[in-house]
């Protein structure tokens, strides 16, 4: 086992079964055969110590589920997740506590993820209390103030007594970041941390995350649907399509030389903030066809499809150095 990998995700599956609708219950149609959503369907990826892995994909492709699996908010049906070579699914109670200190998550919605009845101080003290980090009140106060300064909520004395409704969206997200970092974690899952924020505030939060990552020696999984943001933040990018990773490589390789047809399509659709650039617009086929039962899930829209693609699903293959693609062509 290589020691440079902080986190290894090996062939992880997470399936959700759909509830049957009213009509199906009445008609007893499809009894016993529940429809299954394969949210994460055999994902293997390694995250090296100190790097930022960007996870991109359209909504509903399983990005967030993968993030939740890593922080153990969900348990996978199959597969292993190793943190520093240790299987996190087989931890006992004490080890789990320690694991949850090391791995933290920043959530998407700063309006929903902070308890409206807790002041900033109480929100931040909670992790310290749960993990029994520091017992003295003065020390806790000091740690919290220091953390708030780190996320540029200055002066901290002014912010600690406020409730979430007294903060703007950007300030709330800063509190979320502070709460995630107060336990000095090693690994952060940032799930679309800026998608709800305005452009001017977004840049601030992104720069801050970059800075904090450097100062705290963090490793990060950065989940986003915006390729431009992913490019700005990450060292490597993984592109996800319906529960599977279809391309994985360094940011520059993915952006400049995409190989998987889905990544190519995705990149051609990203609008460019420069009116003189003159992006070539492509005509996209209709997406109304249902998902193929077997074989490549991108089959219907792919312009390079072969007969093989219809039958078998492709595995990730190293096409160039450190550039992995799951495509049969």
């Amino acid at each position, binding site marked *: 086992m290589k020691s440079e990998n902080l986190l290894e995700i090996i062939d992880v599956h997470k399936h959700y079964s759909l509830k049957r609708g009213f009509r199906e219950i009445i008609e007893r149609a499809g009894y016993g055969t529940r429809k299954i959503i394969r949210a994460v369907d055999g994902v293997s990826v390694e995250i090296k110590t100190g790097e930022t892995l960007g996870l991109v994909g359209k909504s509903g492709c399983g990005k967030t589920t993968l993030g939740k699996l890593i922080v153990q908010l969900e348990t996978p049906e199959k597969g292993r997740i190793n943190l520093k070579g240790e299987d996190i699914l087989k931890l006992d109670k004490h080890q789990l506590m320690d694991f949850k200190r090391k791995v933290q998550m920043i959530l998407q919605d700063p309006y929903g993820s902070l308890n409206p009845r807790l002041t900033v101080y109480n929100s931040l003290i909670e992790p310290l209390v749960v993990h029994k980090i520091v017992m003295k009140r003065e020390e806790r106060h000091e740690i919290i103030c220091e953390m708030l300064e780190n996320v540029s909520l200055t002066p901290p004395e002014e912010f600690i007594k406020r409730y979430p409704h007294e903060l703007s969206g950007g300030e709330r997200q800063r509190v979320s970041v502070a709460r995630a970092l107060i336990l000095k974690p090693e690994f952060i899952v940032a799930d679309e941390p800026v998608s709800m924020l305005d452009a001017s505030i977004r840049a601030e939060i992104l*720069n801050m995350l970059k800075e904090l990552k450097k100062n705290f020696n963090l490793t990060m999984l950065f989940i986003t649907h915006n390729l431009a943001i992913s490019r700005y933040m990450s060292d490597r990018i993984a592109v996800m399509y319906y529960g599977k990773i279809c391309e994985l490589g360094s940011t520059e390789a993915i952006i400049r030389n995409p190989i998987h047809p889905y990544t190519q399509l995705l990149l051609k659709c990203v609008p460019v903030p420069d009116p003189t650039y003159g992006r070539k617009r492509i005509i996209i086929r209709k997406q109304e066809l249902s998902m193929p039962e077997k074989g490549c899930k991108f089959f219907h829209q792919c312009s390079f499809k072969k007969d093989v693609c219809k039958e078998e699903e492709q595995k990730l293959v190293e096409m160039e150095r450190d550039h992995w693609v799951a495509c049969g062509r």
Partner: protein
Amino acid sequence: MTLLEIRNLKMYYQLGNSLVRAVDDVSFTLDSGETLGLIGESGCGKSSLAFTIVRVLPPNSKIFGGQILYEGKDLLKMSDDELRQLRGAEISNICQNSMSALNPVLKVGNMAMETISAHENIPRDKAKLRVENLFVDVGLEKSRMNNYPHEFSGGMKQRAIIATSLICYPKIIIADEPTTAFDVIVQEQILQNIKELQNKFGLAMLLISHDISIVAETCERMAVMYAGRLVEVGRTVDLFTKPHHPYTLALLRSFPSIIGEIKKLSSIPGKPPNLINPSKGCRFSPRCWIHNKLCDELKYEMIKVEEEHYTSCPFALNNDLIELFDENMEKKN
């Protein structure tokens, strides 16, 4: 030819005893067939402006003056009945929230038919034919007319809404963040679709967005809005290459791109002002990076920079903003 002209429009919301100045002294024009992009952060009054044009406003709002001239007629002087004839038939809306804009108990096709029957007196089968044709134009199958909204995906609902809003062949369409809820591929499809239909019917469009990359690609002209006021108006290329308002430039530099080298994104410190009793002078001055003493007393007016390019910042005229901005960034680092 100028199709829509807005002059010194003021629309405030009553909130308790105070007024929220959501649209404050806004003037611009929209020519027939052109696309004007309206850019701004959330809460700056973009949507309020759109709602004021067609006067679909909540009860606590009041228009405090100005003119909305559509083909020479003032919409603000029209009665509700007259305006109702205009909405949908001449000026139409594509709204932001496609998920809740369709009536869940009506078949999607019937909703479009309803729009026709409200404005025109034509037989049902002819109306049906028209809906069918437009459904094909927006990329939906004809048979989909008989489906209910819950049977549609998000992108399809948005297409159905576009079809419904175009059904009476309006001259102006106001698209309020038409693609915000979608991923890039669906967004691309919908924008292409709108563009095609625009060319086909010769529509003028006011595209409201907070994403400058979309405006850069789809609009010939753009207007930047900040705290209820327009701060810069001009051709998109001019605003991108030689911006003449510090806010415009700061906004441009806060957007990541997938082309070119990766530059450090700049942010705008501070937050937008409260629109209840905003400060007298320039509203951007507390966050501005070329701020000086005179800003707080500045009278709001649009100053001509060049042909078709106006700014509200007199201090940006003589300086090379881009050079100044880069110097500023370097100092900070």
